[in-house]
């Protein structure tokens, strides 16, 4: 029986050089590709994001783990049965109009991807209609980022636009960024305020 703890550990510790060999070894010793994905690669990311939330690991380590996870996926992908390993859901994320910040948003996008969500990274300086379109297309999870006190009112504009289009109940809306607070999120009618990607992941998982 394959020992998946080594793979979990390699993702958690970001062992880029070892991960592909370990995934191959797990396959060779009979582990199911889907099990390797869920019980090893994604689990390793869960461990690291949890520790990040607790302040025990730091951003560069999380990024290294995400890269390690992706590298493991490259070996695993050809073996995943069609239809399996499907995304947990689709999350569209972007930065509001007039705001050009993208580091935090990109971090969230990358980490959601690494724990199994399909992420549509919409970019920066976006018209409210771009967010609305995503929900029209069936996206159920929407992340809105703003880093300036002058641009966070745009978050409300987006939520109001969803309301007007009759789409508000079709999606869950996350807001985040340095000037955003829980109170502000509630005031403008967002579903969730996520202080960072780890909290966002927990909130998403709580919906499942």
């Amino acid at each position, binding site marked *: 029986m394959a020992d998946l703890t080594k793979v979990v550990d390699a993702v958690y510790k970001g062992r880029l050089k070892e991960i592909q060999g370990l995934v191959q070894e797990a396959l060779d010793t009979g582990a199911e590709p889907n099990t390797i994905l869920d019980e090893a690669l994604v689990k390793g990311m869960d461990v690291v994001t949890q520790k990040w939330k607790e302040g025990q690991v*730091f951003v560069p380590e999380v990024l290294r783990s995400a890269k390690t996870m992706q590298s493991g996926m490259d070996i695993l992908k050809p073996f995943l049965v069609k239809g399996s390993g499907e995304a947990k859901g689709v999350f569209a994320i972007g930065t509001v109009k*007039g705001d050009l910040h993208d580091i935090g948003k990109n971090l969230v996008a990358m980490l959601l991807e690494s724990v199994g969500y399909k992420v549509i990274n919409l970019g920066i300086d976006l018209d409210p209609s771009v967010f609305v379109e995503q929900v029209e297309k069936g996206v159920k999870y929407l992340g809105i980022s703003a880093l300036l006190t002058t641009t966070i009112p745009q978050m409300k504009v987006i939520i109001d636009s969803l309301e007007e289009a009759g789409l508000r109940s079709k999606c869950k809306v996350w807001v985040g960024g340095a*000037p955003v607070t829980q109170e502000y999120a509630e005031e403008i009618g967002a579903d969730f305020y996520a202080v960072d990607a780890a909290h966002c992941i927990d909130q998403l998982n709580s919906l499942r």
Partner: protein
Amino acid sequence: MIVIGERINTSRKAINEALGRRDRVFFQEEARKQEAAGATFIDVNCGSRLKSEFEDFMWLVEAVQEVVSISLCLDSPDPKVLAEGLKRVNKRPLINSITLEKERYAALAPIIEGDAADVIGLCMDDTGIPNTSEKTVENALRLVEKLEGLGLKRSSIYLDPLVQPVSVDTENGKAALKSISTIMQSLPGVHTTCGLSNVSYGLPERFLVNRTFLVCAVAHGLDSAIIDPLDKKIMTSVITAEMIMGKDEYCGEFIDAMREGKLVS
């Protein structure tokens, strides 16, 4: 080093609360302490108070300038606040900040036209925050050309290269340092400045990262920074780095600072 004292910012909880209760004595003490510790400008920022920023800002300007002999750094995301603030100050201030973003530039240009104030220029345009040093420098050159066209003296311009977190890309620190040295060489007379909190985002021991970056930046020609002048460790690093870079004749500042008990090792 031109020190822009950053303490009066409502993103800090104690400051926000004091402003809520209009505690004049508190702010005057904050301002005095920063001047005594060696600040060149006192930054005033209440941008986090979305609904009452305008009135809050004018009250702060009034209260602070009553007790200090140095200039204010008027710091707001809202050009209207900056325009009114400029009318209320009794000493030539530093305006924080202008960028190459079309809308922001158009709103701020009339305020500073004819060298009406010193100004911090962020090296970014409508395409965003540059991710290479080349793009940062290109923005710096364009911004200075435009500001000089408005009648600003080069010595009135403080360029901020917008350092990005090293935690997300380990090239970011080096890129900012390269921008600083290239800007200082290609635009003689201009100032460079920066805040420090971005560089250490996502890392432990952030103050250590901030302080070490600042020393590196001074070594690359940085001549201003938005910092807490009451932080003895950071001020010690600044004073020492400037001496080592040959900016302290006969090491006078350094030795005086020692005598005044300002240095910590």
